């Protein structure tokens, strides 16, 4: 990627992300009291991750069928309470296996 495109975007990205972490850590002393504001920040991370995962995960590989199988494997294992590493590896292995099976069949 051209550095003239990359660096301005990177600098904005780093500044925003760093200030979000640094300012409250350096300045804040009190906890948020307002229940609605609290719940907004409590729900928001999960809503973002959900929106980022579906439907994007279906297009993360070149084959939508194997991606769907990977999604299902990840959902089942996450529901069973497996940790991050196990779920991530299982999704990858499922995609790998199903792609190889498809390549063999077609």
């Amino acid at each position, binding site marked *: 990627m051209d550095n003239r495109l990359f660096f301005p975007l990177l600098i904005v990205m780093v500044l925003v*992300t760093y200030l979000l972490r640094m300012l409250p850590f350096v300045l804040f002393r009190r906890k948020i009291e307002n229940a609605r504001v609290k719940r*907004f920040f409590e*729900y928001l991370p*999960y*809503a*973002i991750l959900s929106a980022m995962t579906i439907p994007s995960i279906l297009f993360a590989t070149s084959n939508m069928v194997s991606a769907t199988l990977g999604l299902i494997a990840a959902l089942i294992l996450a529901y069973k309470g497996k940790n991050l590493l196990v779920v991530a590896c299982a999704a990858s292995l499922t*995609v790998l296996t199903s792609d*190889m099976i498809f390549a063999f069949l077609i």
Partner: protein
Amino acid sequence: MANKKDSFLDGIKAGIPISLGYFSVSFSFGIIAILSGLSIWQAAILSMTNLTSAGQVAGVGIMAASGSLIEMAISQFVINIRYSLMAISLSQKIDKKFPFLLRFFLSAGITDEIFGVAMGTKNSVGPRFLAGLIALPFIGWTSGTILGAIGGSFLPEYITNALAIGIFGMFIAIVIPEVKKSPPIAIVCAISVVLSCIFKFAPIFQNISSGFAYIISAVLATLFGVFAFKDANSTESSKEETHG
């Protein structure tokens, strides 16, 4: 335990499991970065300076689409605002003697998992422990990104395909336990997914970039959740964030 000394080594030990997870997940980030058109060293700089999964995935998406600086700023703000809450919580738990200047430096290492482990310790958090806790995950995140980016340039497509899905697996592993625990979060996430699909597939939204689509979907779904579930008690919000 209560009066345990602030120890760098204790921090290192506590960071080992996080660093292993980060290594494998950042491997798939490295591949995504290469597929988005970044070079290996661009991917490495990005991971070293940001240390955040969801923000970086959205960020390289915006870079790949030659998005605007404003879009980048808004998307990073919304995706990473949770760190501000974690930073507030963590600021209540650190040593009274925590040096002011070190706060500027160590705050850069606040992530979901590091926050979770730091809040889970019995003692107050000292600068040595926090520095140790951040060290290995930082190394794991950076080295995984570099190896993923290198691998992404020469590994066969069926391997990179399989590895690229790994980071989404991690997102799922973060969300699903909360969805099981909390009906409001389950409904908010379901709405967010539906909106995200509408943005992706509805013809009238085709010129809205993916970065904005995520933000709008998540904020609308969250606002709905905040006003629809008036009486849901949000006890121990700091613990709610200690996923991972």
